[in-house]
């Protein structure tokens, strides 16, 4: 039988939330293991070339891709923190508290007293004709291909969705010398920050609101697309169909939290549209209904990298203190972090998120 490794806290996912959670756990002295299936830490950060804004504590002025190194510099000096890259968390068995990790050749079992799940989010699917044609990609896939592996996704891209991701990936495509033929947005207005949208307009990208993609054209690969105007309830207005020349249809119609580990852990789940889909119900300290499980970052509800780092730190502090580890002025730090989170969420798009978080939080804030 494979021998069983024992840790106090296992953190699944080394994106902004997982890195922040691991740092907080590491500082408390808890034996902590951070795992990620990618070969390097950072998660969504390694695809974010733009500069962060917000308070200095949230790395304002730093580009996303530089942030992992800042965390790693401190984590690598903590003897009680172990890091495993290229290790996929394949299962969490609530009955035994065992987390299984695999990298294609080895299968590792870890018994953790607490698990912090920070597995992020992924593109929402979109149903349109021929939506499975090669050339239809999620925005994350386009970013991975382009920013991580340095391969141009195509020559002419139709971007679907005007949230921050749709806007930012469009700009990254232009930076890489790829033409963004058009950006369609089914809603009547642009979803993301207008500063990003302005950059696209200056680059000559037509942004069509109240439009969506209805059909991908091409026999076996994308050769074009049919876009059409839609009314407020997103029904296509007959006769408004138009064909667009493109070899990539990039879907950026929103992210949905990756929560299969929470389902496996038997956590109470709830569908909260404002947070992107099903999320674990949690208390104010990010603890899920399964007392051994904490949630952090986008997997608890899709927000931004800066909020992910804060919820990660909250989860890390809470998980460590729940095991009796000493965290210097834990209460003061927690209340300041919650205030920072409230500040980020107070922005224009924050209203819906605040309502969503409230809906996903157990009433009274404690289990």
């Amino acid at each position: 039988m494979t021998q069983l490794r024992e840790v106090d806290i296992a953190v699944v996912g080394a994106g902004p939330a997982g890195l922040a959670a691991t740092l907080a756990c590491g500082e408390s002295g808890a034996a902590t293991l951070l795992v990620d299936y990618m070969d390097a830490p950072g998660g969504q950060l390694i695809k974010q070339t733009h500069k962060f804004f917000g308070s200095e504590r949230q790395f304002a002025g730093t580009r996303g891709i530089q942030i992992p190194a800042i965390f790693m510099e401190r984590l690598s000096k903590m003897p009680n923190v172990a890091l495993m890259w290229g290790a996929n968390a394949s299962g969490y068995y609530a009955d035994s508290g065992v987390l299984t990790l695999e990298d294609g050749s080895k299968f590792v079992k870890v018994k953790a007293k607490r698990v912090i799940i920070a597995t992020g989010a992924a593109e929402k699917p979109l149903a349109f004709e021929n939506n499975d044609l090669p050339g239809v990609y999620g925005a994350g896939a386009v970013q991975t291909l382009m920013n991580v592996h340095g391969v141009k996704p195509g020559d002419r891209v139709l971007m679907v969705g005007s949230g921050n991701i749709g806007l930012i990936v469009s700009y990254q495509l232009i930076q890489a010398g790829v033409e963004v033929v058009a950006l369609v947005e089914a809603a009547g207005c642009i979803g993301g920050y207008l500063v990003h949208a302005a950059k696209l307009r200056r680059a000559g990208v037509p942004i069509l609101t109240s439009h969506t993609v209805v059909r991908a054209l091409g026999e076996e690969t994308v050769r074009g697309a049919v876009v059409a105007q839609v009314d407020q309830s997103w029904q296509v207005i007959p006769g408004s169909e138009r064909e667009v020349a493109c070899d990539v249809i990039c879907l950026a119609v929103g992210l949905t939290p990756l929560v299969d580990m929470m389902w496996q852990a038997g956590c109470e789940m709830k569908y909260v549209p404002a947070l992107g889909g099903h999320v674990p119900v949690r208390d104010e300290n990010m603890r899920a209904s399964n007392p051994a499980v904490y949630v952090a970052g986008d997997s608890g509800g899709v927000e931004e990298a800066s909020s992910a780092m804060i919820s990660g730190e909250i989860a890390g502090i809470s998980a460590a203190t729940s095991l009796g580890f000493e965290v210097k002025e834990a209460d003061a730090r927690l209340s300041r972090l919650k205030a920072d989170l409230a500040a980020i969420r107070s922005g224009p798009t924050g209203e819906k998120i605040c309502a969503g978080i409230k809906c996903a939080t157990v009433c009274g804030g404690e289990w």
Partner: protein
Amino acid sequence: MSRNSADVVVIGGGVVGCAVAFELAQRGCTNVTLIERDTVASGSSGRCGAGVRQQFGTELNCVLAREAVRIFERMDEYLDYKPSVEFRQSGYLMLAFSDHQWEQFLANVALERSLDIDVKTLTPEEALKIVPFLNIDGMVGATFCQEDGHANPFHTTFAYARAARRLGVEILTHTEVTGIEVEKGRIRAVVTDRGRIATSTVVNCAGAYSGHVAAMAGIDLPVWGERHQILITEPVEPIMGPMVISFHHDFYCQQVPHGSFIMGIGMPGEPKGYNIHSSVDFLEGMARSLRQLLPPVAQLRVVRQWAGLYDRSPDAQPILGECPPVERFFNANGFSGHGFMLAPIVGVIMAELVTTGSSSIDVNRLDAGRFARGELVLEPAVVG
């Protein structure tokens, strides 16, 4: 719930309950209400490996299994079901790894042949002709019956449910039985969380929960839940026909028509209970047994693992028939892992018993009273 009374109330929407309801309606008893707590086939029927075999060690089990296969062979037409229940007779290959086991196999084969079930005995080398990548180290011999096979458990259960509905059976899903009213040994009604149904007859097909249901009628029925875990791999083009079973390793594995492999092992010391979570011990044990017995199949990826409940009885044999002291309280449970394969014939037998009081195949020895009388039925050919 459109009716508040029924001639018969069937409790449990698995393959057994749906088969019983259909066969009752076939015999003109159409005022039947079937109650299912969740959805049809959401219990063990939708979680089992769905093998269908005739290779058993007692006469009664062989006869029941043989008659069930006869029905499976024409089920799509019998139940007028499209697309198909996907019954495929690709055989069962039963492996013996000790002389003692081999002697038992030979006795079984003699019994099976006497009941005209066509079973062959094979040397390990002959077994290799059927499954070329089988590891025959330590194998003494094998038995093979081509007529045994596999069906799609979901389609089979849905086929019976849809056919029963067509004949007038009312199927209430998302409805839980909360009580059974009994007065002076006679059933008055079945009470559910969505209303009361007056009836004089209940057929208890609640699988692992049959003991709970019987208790509602004041009956002490020794049936309990026992977790059995299972996994499925990614699909590949067909390379293995039969179900491969080794009692010695408590192991079974089959490539189903979809191309994926379904497999399971018994877990020693599994406690009584209703826990159907998966465990990593099962995953490891399964992977090791598979690597030993069918090495190339270990090059496949597991896509999903889950668990279901055997409805265990003390002698791992079915409990069929009326259950004194309560009149017209019929049991069809306790199958201990063979409910799916026997369901077609159990449906017929229970419908006969309910409508006529006797059945074409005598199942008196499988009554619930046998435990009190100490007349347990011992069946050697069972996976752990």
